[in-house]
């Protein structure tokens, strides 16, 4: 089967100009591939560079080296090098990203926050709000909270809103960074279900997590990072698959 995403040689070195140009290597020579409909887990100790990988792919970080070929609906693009306009369009229509924390505008309602995840030109405001309501309902956010700003929500509720926003446009490629970090048991179960549903509908997902319990059952393969070398220990798909099978 053709891969949806192939990452090769991904390296990120930060140059800290404020510290006299000191450099910090966050990850080096990362290699992996993601097949359509697959859920890939990335595991590793804190500081191993897991978030960096996702952020480089999403272009929040500027990769120092490497490529990330993504098979978009309009042809293949290297996400690390393509024009920002392409990235913006892909973010709008094809790629979703769930951050560790929800960063919200205090005065925007949960419903709005989620609706804003939908591309404006494709969705009218009222349809977008309907869709947002449906997602919030699925994620069991009590409907009396919908009009309130998520900044007043509990951590678990906030994170569910965050996820709803990121998946509202049904991304083909979903990047999730510790999506369950702040959640209680019940919320985790809901997120797990949502991810599986997205997978069923054809999304391919890369998820970074410590939460082995939640993701053990749903990841198809796992990529392990080692803090010392900052490289992938189980590089190459056979290795990765083996890790998932253990």
């Amino acid at each position, binding site marked *: 089967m053709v891969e949806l995403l192939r990452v090769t040689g991904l390296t990120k070195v*930060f*140059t*800290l*100009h*404020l510290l006299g140009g000191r450099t910090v290597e966050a990850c080096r020579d990362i290699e992996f591939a993601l097949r359509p409909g697959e859920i890939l887990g990335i595991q590793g100790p804190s500081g191993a560079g897991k978030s960096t990988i996702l*952020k480089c792919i999403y*272009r*929040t*970080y*500027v990769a120092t080296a490497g490529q990330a070929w993504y098979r*978009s*609906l*309009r*042809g293949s*693009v290297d996400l690390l090098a*393509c*024009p*920002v*306009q*392409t*990235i*913006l*369009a*892909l973010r709008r*229509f*094809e790629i979703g990203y769930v951050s560790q924390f929800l960063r919200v*505008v*205090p*005065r*925007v309602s949960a419903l709005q926050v989620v609706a*804003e995840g939908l591309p*404006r*030109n*494709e969705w009218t*405001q009222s349809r977008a709000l309907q*869709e947002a309501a*449906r*997602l919030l309902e*699925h*994620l069991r956010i009590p409907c009396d909270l919908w009009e309130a700003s998520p900044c007043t929500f509990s951590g678990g509720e906030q994170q569910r809103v965050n996820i709803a926003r990121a998946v509202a*446009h*049904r991304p*083909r490629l979903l990047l999730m960074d510790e999506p369950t970090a702040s959640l209680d048991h019940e919320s985790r179960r*809901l997120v797990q*279900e*949502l991810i*599986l*549903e*997205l997978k*069923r*509908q*054809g*999304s391919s997902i890369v998820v970074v997590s410590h939460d082995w319990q939640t993701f053990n059952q749903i990841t198809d393969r796992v990529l392990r990072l080692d803090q010392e070398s900052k490289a992938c220990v189980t590089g190459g798909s056979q290795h990765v698959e083996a890790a998932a099978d253990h």
Partner: protein
Amino acid sequence: MGGIELSGLNIADTFSGLQGNPVPDEPLLRVRGLTRIYGRGCAECVVRTGPEAGSNICPICASIVACAGVSFDLYAGEMMGVVGESGSGKSTLVQCLYFDHTSSAGEAYLKSYRGGAVNMLGSSAQEQRHIRHHLMGMVYQNPHQGLRLDCTAGGNIAEKLLTAGFFHVGRIRERASELLRRTEVPMERMDHLPRHFSGGMQQRVQIAKALANNPPLVFLDEVTTGLDVSVQARVLDLIRHLHRELGLAMLVVSHNLDVIRLLTDYTLVMKSGRVVEAGLTDQILGDPQHPYTQLLVSSLL
């Protein structure tokens, strides 16, 4: 109850309506090498100034290079930020594009003006006035610049509509009240003088005026600077809301990175009259490349 049901749409459907491609078509506004020098200017002005020189004043002729060599593309419906410390050339940049100042050099093409084939910086004053009134809107930091404080709020909006050849008092008032409603200015203030309005309300009237002729492009220069925090928040919400609802392209100038983060997808960072870094706003904030941007971002946190 089984697994989580997502709405009837599946992924294939979501994309079937999308006819664009990952690379959108022509930009709405294309700017190349925009330069504005105050003073006589000399051959060395541009090379002797800038972020490396740490100044925008030419050491030879003492001219001020307010901005130089600024290039960017702004796409329809997009929000672009311009950030930088005060004096870095942000206002000069937008004011050149709005023809408040003449530019010393450079080109600017607007898709809706002659198909984007003609450099509008070289157009006649009359053409530029037409572009200003039909294809652009401007919201200044200082409401005195954008509003006639001795004309009513409705009169201010009417001015834009009258310029566009809308000679029907009833329809002008309909449109003005619609704009004031959108910008959350109480209708009963329509026939009052903005002189007596609060700063926040003056800004909202300015925004209504800028939107009067449905321009595809709006410039916002430090629109919240100088307002109380709670008032700032309301104005920012309004801008976000209008952007989402009307799908305008906006060029948002601010020295405040929080404003830029809240509003924009793409950002230019300016220092000493030059663009030192440009990129996705989350990248500028998350992984700034230029030493100056790193300083700017670090002082934010």
